[in-house]
């Protein structure tokens, strides 16, 4: 086994373990840390395939930024499920296991039988810097997605602010909203009362009419 192989297995093991941590650690805080670990491990794998740019971006985004945002969120919401007794897994987790195993089996199975279907080019990575070609690609060939990504990020930012901020007017709006709900609820109750009264009056023979909404 070459160094390359050893390094891969090491990073892969870390990534898998960290991923398991993300899905399996009861404490959300720990899961967020695990996510950072997984991001870093994957970033290192990017380095293994010789892509420094991706490595850098991955470490920045998934190693740092995303876990940080999530950690903040976790802190804001209190870290863990409110109901400690019910555990961190939803009640349907056996189904989830089944589905996940199915997914894994499907993907791994296909990968296993598809050893030679992948496209092979003549581009030799070794000894060549990829950052420059990557930059060319991103800014020339993929200029449109790049621009759109910028718009996407802008949207996300504006959206996060718009959704996340707590406005002065919010209480007022909330009161109006509560009034709406209250009114709907009241109308519903009244209607149900009327329905009951009508059903009581009506002889059983013409119960067919009760069907009408």
């Amino acid at each position: 086994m070459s160094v390359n192989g050893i390094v891969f297995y090491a990073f892969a093991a870390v990534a898998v373990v960290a991923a398991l941590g993300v899905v399996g650690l009861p404490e959300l805080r720990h899961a967020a840390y695990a996510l950072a670990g997984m991001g870093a491990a994957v970033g290192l794998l990017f380095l293994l395939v010789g892509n420094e740019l991706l490595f850098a971006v991955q470490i920045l985004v998934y190693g740092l930024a995303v876990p940080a945002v999530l950690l903040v969120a976790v802190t804001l919401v209190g870290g863990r499920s409110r109901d400690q007794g019910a555990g961190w897994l939803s009640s349907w987790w056996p189904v989830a296991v089944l589905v996940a195993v199915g997914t894994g089996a499907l993907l791994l199975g296909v990968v296993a039988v598809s050893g030679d279907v992948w496209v092979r080019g003549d581009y030799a990575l070794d000894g060549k810097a990829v950052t420059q070609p990557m930059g060319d690609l991103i800014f020339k060939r993929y200029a449109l997605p790049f621009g759109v990504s910028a718009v996407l990020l802008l949207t996300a930012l504006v959206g996060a602010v718009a959704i996340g901020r707590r406005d002065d007017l919010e209480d007022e709006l909330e009161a109006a909203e509560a009034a709406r709900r209250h009114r709907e609820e009241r109308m519903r109750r009244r209607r149900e009362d009327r329905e009951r009264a009508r059903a009581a009056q009506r002889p059983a023979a013409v119960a067919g009419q009760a069907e009408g909404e």
Partner: protein
Amino acid sequence: MTGTLFHAILAQTGTGLPTTPTTPTPTTTPASTFPTILLTALIFSSMAIAVIILFLPERTRDQRGRIRIMGLVGAAIPMLFTLGGLNFQVSQEFSGGTVSFEEKHAWVTSFPIHIDYHLGVDGISLPLLLLSTVMFTVAVLAAWKNETRPRLFFVLLLLLETGVNGTLCALDGVMFVLFWAMELVPSFLLIAIWGGTGRLRAAQRYLVYGLISTALLLAALLLLAFKSQQNSFDFDLTNTVGLTPAIAFTGFWLSVAAFAIRLPVVPLHTWMPDAVAEASPPVSAIISGVVLKLSAYGLLRITMSAFPLGVGRFSFVLAVFAVVGTWWGFAGALGTRDIKRLLAYISIGQMSGVLLAVSAGQSIALNGAVLLMLANGFGIGLLLLLAGTLEERARTRDITRLGGLVWQMPRLTALWIVGGLTAIGVPFLAGFAAEFMLFTGAFPVHRWATVLVMVGLLLNTGCVLWMLQRVFFGNAREAFARIKDASTLELFYLVPLAAVAVLLGLFPGRLLPIINNGVLSVVSRINGG
């Protein structure tokens, strides 16, 4: 029209010489000189009026009155168009061709299978158009006193009329389905809103059966369009193409099932007495008198024209259904105490006669079948309207609780008798020529079935008479002492209907050349034309 008839009588009675049947004299005026927008105008005028009514207010009495007037206008315009067209055709003896007033425009051409905006009437649809438009006009009058949501009522009624008239005029499969299904929702709502106590369930059943029928019809038409290799839904084209037996049989059964649901044919009929009994009188008259005739029309227009192989192959099965239908109708009529249900069962029995004609596939029988549709439409329609007036007065439709009403309402009783005798095919009323020709035509093909249908219809007769006797004759009853006879309005719309039934019975010969012209094109398909 009648003038020329009397002239003919006098001319014939004056001599003792052999008379020859009047042969159509070729005329030089082609039918196409008539404005070809006629049918479009006929179909959509009622819809246009409906749209106008939609925007009229209905708060005050005057406003409601205006709505009624508009409703009458919306129903009368198509009737005038139809009468004009009929008169034109009577004078022309359909010499201009099988289909007249034809309008054909390419509609959808981007698709592999084209759809045409193709309208036209032939000898089968024109008389039925008369039935439809007259009945709708009468229904508007019959609903004159309706004070609950008149706007919606008339809008729905006029939309229904558009659907019915469109179905009768459509000469393209998609247009046929379009109009065929278009009447579904208005009639569903008409039952569900203005009906009796069980209206919602009845409406629901009506709807579901109607939808299934539409789906089956669509399947049949798609099959036809695909398999006939004509790349068009147009009846003209698709009908001329021979299909393989398997396809023809499949399409045949699909279309038969579609129409059997709505005809209705036993055992698919169970929704029908329900719907007729629960709907308000004008609506039940329209549904039973007009809408259900569309399926009989469809049997001729689609099943027989497009899938003649199936008609030939499964003729006997259809005849069996016809026999079962008449007898079942009789038994049901005998077994019910509700006048409207009784009328519905009578109608089921009579429409089975149409099925018999279809199974026979003979021109005489089919002529009789078309006449029977008219007679049944006018007769049952009249009776259902009368049942409405009766229920309005006596507050019940239970035959066993009624009696001796002739003392209070002699005029209405007279109309009941005319309607009843029309329905049972007494000479000189509309049903007579129909049944006679139907039996005469069908007998050579299905002897025993014809005999059994005849007996079944005879028994239907008995039911009608028995009902009339129980309801109207006997001692006057105290409970009904305050009942009044027909009002002027009621006479205004009921008497013309009865008159039409009588006229149709006296002079079926005026319509027969027209009808036969349409029937011949159908029969020619059966005979491999």
